[in-house]
């Protein structure tokens, strides 16, 4: 199968959906001629025009709010939020308005919008351009949250998100934009709320989110050399969360390590760990483990930054100890 980059996958997903549905438009900073600083959207303005690929001023709360209103009145806007760290600026529009409108109106108003943004550290971008803030929106009822782990997921999830009748926030790992994966030429969708067992195994389950799937795969390779078999579950969306697939895996392996790039405390890894501890408790052979980013603002210095996020070595080490009964 052909391989394309995650960036191309996003571009294709948007182009395909925009061709299909006139009500879709996209807005954000430097999305048109510039195609975003990451050049993810290059070419779209040439095909769809500045009427549908709209450059905004640097007004995140404002254009997020505009998207909410457009979505309530028959449009399907896609918001491009240049960095995930800017989520803090749009929280009111996203969480007080978009997330609650359907419920508050007793089901009469819909907000079918997608907010695409990114996450991920180790790009030496320092504390305000390196955060992985998906937990914040996952905590707010009414928002769906997708976490693609490769170009394949990026395309399939984004297409589903665009067709969904609810506000969906999608986090792309900015270090993965140039990573390639096999992506079919034919149209496909990945449903929101369906986890993927990325690798089967029997001794321990890794629940790994976004780029942490790659980390988990490297760790699993290292474990294999020790004769330890790891299963990898990629939830793909954290809201809705496919609890069943996760629990089934843990029930089979009896051990779990949740790996996520958000800060560990009060993070997504806590939710998954808590569900396992509640619902697969009697199947567990060792403590529920998790690994997130350190609870520190992301430092600029490369010497420090690399210490803050989960690595394959540390995942491997922790898993090995668990399987050996050392934890």
């Amino acid at each position, binding site marked *: 199968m052909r391989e394309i980059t995650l960036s191309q996958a996003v571009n294709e997903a948007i182009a395909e959906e925009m061709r299909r549905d006139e009500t879709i*438009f996209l807005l954000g900073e430097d999305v048109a001629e510039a195609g975003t600083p990451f050049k993810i959207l290059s070419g779209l303005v040439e095909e769809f025009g500045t*009427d*549908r690929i*709209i450059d*905004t*001023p640097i*007004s995140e*709360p*404002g*254009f*997020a*709010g*505009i*998207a*909410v*209103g*457009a*979505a*309530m*009145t*028959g*449009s399907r*806007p896609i918001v491009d939020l240049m960095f995930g760290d800017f989520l803090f600026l749009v929280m*009111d*529009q996203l969480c*007080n*308005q978009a997330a609650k*409108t*359907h*419920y*508050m*109106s*007793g*089901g*009469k*108003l*819909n907000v*079918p919008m997608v907010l695409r943004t990114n996450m991920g550290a180790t790009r030496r971008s320092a504390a305000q351009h390196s955060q992985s803030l998906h937990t914040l929106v996952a905590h707010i*009822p*009414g928002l*769906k949250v997708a976490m693609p782990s490769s170009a394949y997921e990026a395309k399939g999830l984004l297409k589903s998100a665009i067709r969904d*009748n*609810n506000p969906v926030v999608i986090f792309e790992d900015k270090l993965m934009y140039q990573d390639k994966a096999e992506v079919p030429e034919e149209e496909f969708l990945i449903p929101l709320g369906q986890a993927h067992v990325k690798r089967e195994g029997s001794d321990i389950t890794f629940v790994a989110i976004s780029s942490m799937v790659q980390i988990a795969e490297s760790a699993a390779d290292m474990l294999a050399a020790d004769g330890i078999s790891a299963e990898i579950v990629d939830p793909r969306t954290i809201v809705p969360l496919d609890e069943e697939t996760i629990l089934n895996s843990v029930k089979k392996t009896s051990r779990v390590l949740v790996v996520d790039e958000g800060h560990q405390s009060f993070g997504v890894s806590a939710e998954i760990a808590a569900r396992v501890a509640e619902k697969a408790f009697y199947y567990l052979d060792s403590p529920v483990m998790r690994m997130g980013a350190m609870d520190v603002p992301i430092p600029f210095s490369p010497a420090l930054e690399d210490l803050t996020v989960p690595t394959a070595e540390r995942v491997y080490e922790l898993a090995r100890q668990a399987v050996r009964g050392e934890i």
Partner: protein
Amino acid sequence: MAKNVTANSEDYLRMYRQMVRIRTFEDNANQLYLTAKMPGLTHMYSGQEAVAVGICEALEKTDHITSTHRGHGHCVAKGAEFKEMFCELLGKAEGYCRGKGGSMHIADQANGNLGANAIVGGSAGIATGAALTAKRLGNGAVTVCFFGDGALGQGLLYEVMNMAALWKLPVIYACENNLYGEYTHVSEMAAGKLGGRAEAFGIEAFEVDGQDVLAVNQLTQELVARARKGEGPFFMALNTYRYHGHHVGDINRTYYRSKEEEADWKDNRDPITNFGAWLVKENIANAEDLDAIQAEIKAAATNAVTYALDAPYPPADEVDSHVFAA
């Protein structure tokens, strides 16, 4: 009060009726609260009727409005019914939002009301987005964004006014200046001139007597027509006054405005009394006609209240429906 260029007797009487309907709705809501029959809090629109009615009478059903925490007036003016409104205020299943929204989130999408908002200034983006949809679809719809003088403190408003101006969106920002945000006078909250805040973005700004329904209606008709032609956005400052406290029952705060000020507005500038007098003077109606309208509306409200009080609450299993749309 100057005759509208385009309105006829029927229009005038409808405006009168709509203002009376708002006042009557609020009197009943107030009573429900004071007799502990209404849960939560609500903010009375009484005194500001000419704003909502003057504006909404210049709109089509297909035009949109966004509303505020003080939103009953907008809702009535845009065409809502008493029954569904009282049901909503009482948290009943037949309310416009199945009781889930309540006073502060009442919406009526069938009539183009995108909803009240409990975040001051929170709907400025929504209104502007609705206008963007209209522009893209080229359907000629106009959106009016209602907000209070207090909302001028919110930066979001300036962000979206800038975009509305850049993109020439068919949206009208209607600032109801009732002089106070809660217990603080507008002069302590807003430096400079109100209209200047729109003009800064190249948006034409207008100021109008918000107690004069015809003046409001006339100006709105002009601006709506221009907005439909792509000459928007516009900004209106409407000078008005709220009769009640910031919220129902909130009556013992005398330090922030004087009883004389309140009396002056109520006695001399009441939009319904003044418009009624004008209707009589212009021989459009006589005093008995107006009394009959009032009586009829009062009875309709009483009926709706009775109905709503008896209406069922939503069933328990609705608590987790409508979190996500299908």
